[in-house]
């Protein structure tokens, strides 16, 4: 057997070994076995890194346990395909999985169900690894579904009643996505006669098919398939309105969040990337993804600001970030979405694991909140403000120059890229605006921080992201075609650019006025709307109440079926 195959199998099977080590044995040795379990997981990570190097240099690794011609006779067409995308994802998952497991060994020590929990965490890592290495659409779906169930199982905390409801909701909403995903697979097989990725992409590109799902409504076969599969991605990546499973699941133990927010929830972004050639054939689906992502990002961020619980705040932050990731996919920037999910995964895993420590510490040392501190003296530094303002204004020019002149990205032909660059402008402006709030430091330090922010943003967004795109999608023409497919209608494109510019300038104006002690007059009706919106977002758009109402309606309907005339069952 080739060394690359052995490596690939090691990456997948070592977590399974760790799971077995944890589960099998006497209870009094469980801590030692749990500690020993780190070893296979760390080895899996090392193997994943080596696999990435091998795949990058020698090409994809394929393992298949069935004959493609007899696919209809196979109950489970088991196969693995590890290309650059899979290899990058396996490095991320095995790395974060190992860290989270190591953390859990101590964090969950002496908790009831210690072994079960650790075994489930490792098994989930195994399923995640298999999912990103799936060789065909059916196997991807198989692992995808198992993930839904495992997540619901992990979300249970036997000693906490709220997790009961949270877990149930998690499973039912994830299954909603699973069903749509299945419908997508069946339609894809029905239209193109295959479930193999490469064949599917080739046939979909070669034979355009028109469908009429409703009278007067026409769509291409690729659009129908990708839209259905996209719903599957929406549920796993907590996109509006299928996001409401995420907040209640936050009652689960902290390591579960770390794994969820760093790995599982990225599944939607991975799914779109895995099927990128198919998504590239459908502008409609990409536009839908853009809208869904944008709405989720806005609502997620808005709800995050209104929450008063650290885990819920982080949860809604994740929803917002996932919206951002899906929006990137909708812009045709598939590789950037992967870049984003990696960065977000690493960041959120760290934050959640720290969050667990903070909560533990708060429980161990309950102290009253510190007395209110005197209002800080407001400093106004002309240098800070001038630097920030100029940086914000110059940034688009610098970004455009770097992108167009140095990296030779075809900006004029890629609306998606321009919008993406505008978002990078928003992000960096937000960072600079935040820096202006820093009190008690000399203004030159803040100015330097602003310059560094600018450099960081430029490096990250342009150089690193561009290199990553080249690594994941070496075919430049394909990348250009994705951007082309994602192009928005001209008026919408112009409106987005104009709105973004206006918001940034207004933001600067508002903050400048506040820092100078000037009152910004806000009309009463705006204040009223502000209060209403705050209530709306604090109550998470009342979607939980809507969900509860729906549950009651189903039960009523079912009871109605039971009792017919004169109280006799139907």
């Amino acid at each position: 057997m080739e060394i690359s195959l052995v490596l690939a199998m090691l990456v997948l099977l070592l977590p399974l070994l760790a799971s077995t080590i944890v589960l099998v044995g006497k209870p009094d040795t469980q801590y030692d076995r749990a500690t020993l379990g780190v070893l296979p997981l760390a080895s899996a990570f090392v193997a994943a890194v080596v696999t990435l190097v091998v795949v990058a240099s020698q090409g994809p690794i394929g393992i298949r346990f069935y004959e493609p011609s007899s696919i209809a006779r196979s109950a489970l067409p088991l196969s693995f395909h590890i290309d650059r995308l899979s290899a990058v994802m396996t490095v991320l998952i095995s790395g974060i999985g190992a860290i989270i497991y190591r953390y859990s060994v101590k964090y969950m020590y002496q908790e009831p169900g210690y072994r079960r929990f650790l075994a489930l965490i490792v098994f989930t890592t195994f399923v995640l690894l298999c999912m990103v290495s799936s060789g065909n659409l059916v196997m991807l779906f198989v692992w995808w579904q198992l993930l839904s169930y495992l997540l619901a199982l992990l979300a249970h905390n036997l000693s906490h009643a709220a997790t009961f409801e949270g877990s149930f909701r998690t499973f039912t909403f994830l299954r909603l996505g699973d069903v749509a995903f299945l419908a997508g697979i069946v339609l894809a097989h029905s239209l193109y006669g295959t479930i193999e990725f490469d064949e599917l992409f080739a046939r979909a590109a070669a034979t355009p098919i028109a469908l009429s799902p409703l009278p007067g409504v026409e769509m291409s076969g690729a659009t129908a398939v990708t839209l259905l599969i996209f719903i599957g991605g929406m549920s796993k990546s907590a996109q509006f309105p299928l996001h409401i499973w995420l907040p209640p699941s936050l009652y689960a133990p902290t390591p579960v969040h770390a794994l969820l927010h760093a790995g599982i929830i990225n599944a939607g972004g991975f799914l779109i990337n895995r099927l990128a050639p198919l998504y590239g054939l459908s502008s409609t689906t990409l536009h839908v993804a853009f809208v869904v992502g944008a709405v989720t990002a806005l609502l997620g961020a808005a709800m995050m600001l209104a929450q008063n619980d650290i885990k819920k705040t982080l949860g809604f932050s994740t929803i917002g970030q996932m919206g951002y990731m899906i929006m990137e996919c909708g812009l045709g920037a598939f590789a950037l979405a992967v870049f984003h999910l990696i960065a977000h995964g690493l960041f959120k895993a760290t934050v959640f694991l720290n969050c667990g420590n903070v909560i533990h510490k708060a429980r161990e040392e309950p102290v009253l909140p510190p007395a209110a501190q005197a209002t800080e003296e407001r400093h106004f530094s002309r240098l800070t403000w001038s630097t920030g303002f100029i940086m914000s204004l110059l940034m688009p020019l610098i970004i455009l120059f770097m992108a167009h002149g140095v990296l030779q990205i075809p900006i004029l032909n890629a609306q998606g890229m321009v919008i993406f660059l505008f978002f990078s402008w928003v992000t960096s402006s937000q960072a600079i605006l935040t820096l202006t709030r820093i009190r008690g430091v000399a203004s030159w330090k803040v100015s330097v921080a602003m310059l560094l922010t600018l450099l960081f943003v430029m490096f990250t967004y342009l150089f690193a992201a561009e290199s990553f795109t080249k690594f994941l999608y070496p075919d430049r023409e394909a990348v250009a075609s994705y951007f082309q497919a994602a192009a928005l209608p001209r008026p919408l494109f112009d409106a987005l650019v104009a709105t973004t510019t206006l918001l940034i300038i207004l933001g600067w104006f508002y903050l400048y006025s506040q820092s100078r002690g000037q009152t910004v007059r806000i009309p009463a009706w705006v204040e009223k709307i502000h209060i209403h919106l705050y209530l709306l977002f604090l109550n998470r758009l009342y979607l939980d109440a809507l969900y509860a109402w729906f549950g009651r309606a189903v039960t009523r309907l079912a009871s109605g079926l039971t009792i017919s005339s004169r109280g006799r069952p139907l």
Partner: protein
Amino acid sequence: MTAILLVAIPAFGAGVGLLIRGKPHALKVCVLLVTIGTLGLIVMEGASGTLPEKPAALTLLALLPFAAFFTVLGQPAHRSLCAPWLLTLLLLGLGLGVLAYEAPLSLIFLFLVLALVGLLFFHARRRAGLDVRWGIGTIALGMLGVVIGATAGGPVSSIALAIACATALPLVPFHKSYVAALSWLPGNLPAFLAVLLPVAGYDGLVTVLPQLPEQVQDAAAILALMGMVYGSFKPFAQSRAASVVAYGGVAFFAIVWWYVLASRTAPVQTVVFMTAVALATSGLHLAWSMLRARFGDIALRALTGLAQPMPHFSIAVSLLAIAALGLPPFGVFSGFLGMLLAPSFAWSGRLAIILFAWLAASWYLFGLAQGLLFGRSRPEYRPGDLRLPELASLTIVLVLLAALGVMPFDFFGSDLGTQYQTVEMGSPLWNK
């Protein structure tokens, strides 16, 4: 000769069992030995190629003694269960007769199966109330269907037989006999009938299918779609686990009806799906009967938090629920996906209803398992975990379900589809 033996061995076993009915331990061993012997005979005959020439015959024939074996194995040796065990053997023999013989003998066996179940309903009518009376009515209709089917000719015969099949492989509005059998009969009988009735009904359905007029097939396909919706909603209003699972079966078997009627084919994938649904339903009934043996016929809401005091039971029920609601790697998922990816299936808007039934199962079956296993633990019940025979019986069900899920479809038999004309199911709204 083989067919006679298949009927005679369980019948003989029942006769011997009658002699030792006062000794539960001995009777249990006797029943288990008879089922093993029957299974052995089926396997031997299957290997030598002397089984009846029906598609997937070996799978369906072997399934019945397997079901009889694991449902009896999971029961405690108690005097009150002796009668259900003897009836299990009797039903096993009759069920094998349905599968092993061609019409008209198979119809006689089907009639006898329905008659025996009807007698059991009659016996249980006072204890169970209205549900069972509906069951008696439905089963009487099924028996009448068999009689008309055997005596009349032409389309009337095939329609009557289809109605008889609908009482066994449940199809709304003829589903009440199935629901009553699974909800109210004593001992292991619900778990065994959860396999026997659908298998017998399916065998009858594929036999009668070529003779059914097209209009009747289309009408029955619409009934099947309605049955999916009905069977998916009903579990939400049930307070007993047995009824939840029974109505879940109604919804899933309606998928089999719809598929076979709409595509005019019965690929081996439908056998896998039907068999897996029957096994999963049986397994869940068996698990519920184990709880009933400990706590009595308790309402669902009153029994929570079993994960910690009954870890083995919890794992088994979790896996059974996964299997029943259609998750991999079990047969319900593989069969379902196999049916949808089979060449005989063409995309249509009706898929939405099928997927709804599949989705709803995730809701009520997950709720059922979650309610039993998690939530507030109730120390006042002092539950004991599964004993070895109980664990073994549930393990057998799980192994069978996993085998159905991972083995290639060819292993379970050949397609029935070649016998019939294949027609395009695609709705006119979906055109390539």
